[in-house]
């Protein structure tokens, strides 16, 4: 190689000339890495937004369940589920699970978890088709000793919230 090089004009053999074109190659190579990194950031960002929304929805769900804790466990679960689903409207199906237990006497604890898949847009190139998202929330309703209710609007009576004494 040394002999071949020596026959070339000095100017063409300068270090500057020998490196011509390498920037393009380097850029092309780094572009792949840049796209991967950008893709991951976009997908993860979107997944975090979905998780935040889902988290807010189960928060609202358990609070609604706790507020309506006078009903049976099935009713509490139903209300919690309804409110959570009202707050999270997305294209992806969500699996909710609600549990109601009694940690102390006359105390109701509502726990709710939600799991969904967030389909990826860019990370698909790396074989990641979806990102699993999970969240959970808990609300506890402590016993109420006595409450005085004046049904001035007759809404409770109209809704049969209380049975006549």
């Amino acid at each position, binding site marked *: 190689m040394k002999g071949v090089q020596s026959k070339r004009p000095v100017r063409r053999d300068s270090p500057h000339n020998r490196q011509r074109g390498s920037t393009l190659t380097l850029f092309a190579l780094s572009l792949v890495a840049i796209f991967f990194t950008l893709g991951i950031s976009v997908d993860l960002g979107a997944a975090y937004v979905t998780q935040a929304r889902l988290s807010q929805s189960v928060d609202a769900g358990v609070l609604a369940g706790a507020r309506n804790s006078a009903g049976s466990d099935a009713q509490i679960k139903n209300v919690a589920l309804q409110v959570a689903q009202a707050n999270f409207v997305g294209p992806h199906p969500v699996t909710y699970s609600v549990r109601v237990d009694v940690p102390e006497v006359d105390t109701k604890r509502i726990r709710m978890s939600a799991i969904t898949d967030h389909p990826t847009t860019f990370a698909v190139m790396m074989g990641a088709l979806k990102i699993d998202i999970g969240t959970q929330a808990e609300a506890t309703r402590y016993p109420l000793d006595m409450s005085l209710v004046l049904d001035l609007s007759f*809404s409770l009576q109209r809704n049969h919230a209380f049975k006549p004494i």
Partner: protein
Amino acid sequence: MTELAIILPLMLVMMLAAVDVGRLIYNDQVLTDLTRSAGNLVSRGSTAAETFTATFAADQTLDIQNKGGIIITRVRRRNTNNPQPWVFEQDRSGANTTYASKIGVVNGPASIPNVTSLAPGVTIMGVEVVNQFTPLFPVSALGLNFYPNTLYASAYF
């Protein structure tokens, strides 16, 4: 130099639009947070008037009181025999008095996402907050009006 002259207007539009898109996302986020706070308050027993006062006080950036409005809707089942979600009460406050609630009107059917029936005694509080969005650099003069005039957020508790 010629290339710069050609590309400069496009770059300027993109840069200025980026500022407003950022503001749009930020305002939407603040609006969502305020809506959830209001929903939380009203579901824990605060009256509508108290919730309005607290939300307007908490709103440091959007000026919802003068540029938008809050609508609080109480939804229960229609009657003993009919589980259809029904609007029983609705309160609103703020300068925007014309924005129609997406949940419904008093004594009318309530539209809540994914909820088609309600058990007896169950009340769902719907809080909707709307606010006017004014871009700093209106690109509507260039025929590129892609900003919404009104931002909307809703929460159910």
